[in-house]
């Protein structure tokens, strides 16, 4: 049996497709019928918004081509309706990455790489999302790192099966419902190309963390390469989007410091090594 997320968390229903997207929107003249989207009303937005508001959800995980097609459909509907989208602190975009087939070592390696660059990544999502209580970063709510550390040390995922870690930029509680990591930081915006780029950034990060055989190898490479080269290794062609972030190197260095408590939580040789295609 593969030592992967699907076989570790027994509540997961096996699902194909690598990515899912939910877009909370408030505005006017918003589309109400779209073949590629399920359209819900989000109570957390509805209770406070003075505008029309919906949540557009891709109903089944898909690939980047599927996401692009769905966003193109939404774009066309916005134009046809002459829709207006309000950008505010209420609405966000949630991207789910299907990690069911990831080995545990791949999963933890990804988390360590993510937390090293989390602060920098979140700058892409918009100033109203940085430190927002709907999507707190590890530097805002460090509890998440300690829950991950306990999970690693005790090889028991019960510490992540907890609503108290749900409103993080990377929601690990979603593992138990969908077998996914839910990225909650992206702002809701009329610029759907920016949302697509965010999906590309996350999938690129997921693919490139596969270059490391273990969390320690990732940390070691960071120490050897330095901040900028490590960022480029992780984000590839998307790295230039972040190179002008103020205090970039300091932010990555601080992220690496935070990630240490999970990177050094165990002897990773005790985790069975496997080659698993994360996007199978």
């Amino acid at each position: 049996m593969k030592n992967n997320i699907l076989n570790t968390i027994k509540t997961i229903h096996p699902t194909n497709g690598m990515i899912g997207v939910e877009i909370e929107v408030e505005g006017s003249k918003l589309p109400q019928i779209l073949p590629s989207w399920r359209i819900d009303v989000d109570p957390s937005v509805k209770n406070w918004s003075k505008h029309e508001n919906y949540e557009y959800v891709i109903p089944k995980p898909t690939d980047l081509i599927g996401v692009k097609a769905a966003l193109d459909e939404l774009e066309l509907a916005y134009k046809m309706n002459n829709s207006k989208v309000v950008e505010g602190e209420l609405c966000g975009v949630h991207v789910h990455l299907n990690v069911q087939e990831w080995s545990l070592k791949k999963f933890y390696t990804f988390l360590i790489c993510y937390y090293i660059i989390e602060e920098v990544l979140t700058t892409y999502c918009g100033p109203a999302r940085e430190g927002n209580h709907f999507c707190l970063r590890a530097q805002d709510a460090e509890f998440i790192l300690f829950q991950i550390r306990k999970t690693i040390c005790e090889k028991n995922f019960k510490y992540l099966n907890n609503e108290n870690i749900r409103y993080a930029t990377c929601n690990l509680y979603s593992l138990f419902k969908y077998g996914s990591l839910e990225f909650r930081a992206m702002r809701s915006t009329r610029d759907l190309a920016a949302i697509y780029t965010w999906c590309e950034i996350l999938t690129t990060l997921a693919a490139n963390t596969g270059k490391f055989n273990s969390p320690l190898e990732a940390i070691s490479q960071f120490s050897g390469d330095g901040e900028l080269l490590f960022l480029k290794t992780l984000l590839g062609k998307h790295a230039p989007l972040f190179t002008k972030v103020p205090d970039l190197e300091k932010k990555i260095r601080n992220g690496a410091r935070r990630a240490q408590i999970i990177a050094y939580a165990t002897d990773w040789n005790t985790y069975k090594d496997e080659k698993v295609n994360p996007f199978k």
Partner: protein
Amino acid sequence: MLVYKNAEYAANRLAGTIVRRIIGNQHIPIAIANIANSKVAYTTLADNIPDVCDLKELDLDPVPLGYINNQKIATYWARKPMRQDWRQGLRAANVVCLSHPHAEWGGNNLKQIAACIDGVYPTFKQCLGKVKRNPEAKGSIAFSRDFAIDGGGALMYKSIVVGGIDDNGEPDYLPSFEWASDAFIEAVN
């Protein structure tokens, strides 16, 4: 930076919580009592002085946490990114003590919480002197947001015992925690 423009929404997310007020270059920890008409009624955390400011003067970034030096013990605190408590500011319901699970938040320790948020700690040497003078005491004291030492000579990093302090006052790391040395050097300098 996150900014709230709707006073009613802001009151819902901030009343009864700790954030900071921006005055010049300073970001002062405050406990918000109420918000109405874009005016914020608060007391300063360090001095318990009541005052009023505009909503736009608030720094809504989550306040930094870590070790809080109480009377005899240093406790390590972190915020929980929880769903059921949708407050932007910090309060007892969304914070947890990782070093002492039964420790209570707030109470008479508001001044010490303010010092933690502001990053104000005694130096490593001062802490070392204090525990050496009273080695029988079972207490602990933090010299940074991330590090504390106790009367038994243990060195703690973010609530985890990572080693001890030798007779020369130098850190002596457990084999699996040597990685904490860089953070220690940064903390004492």
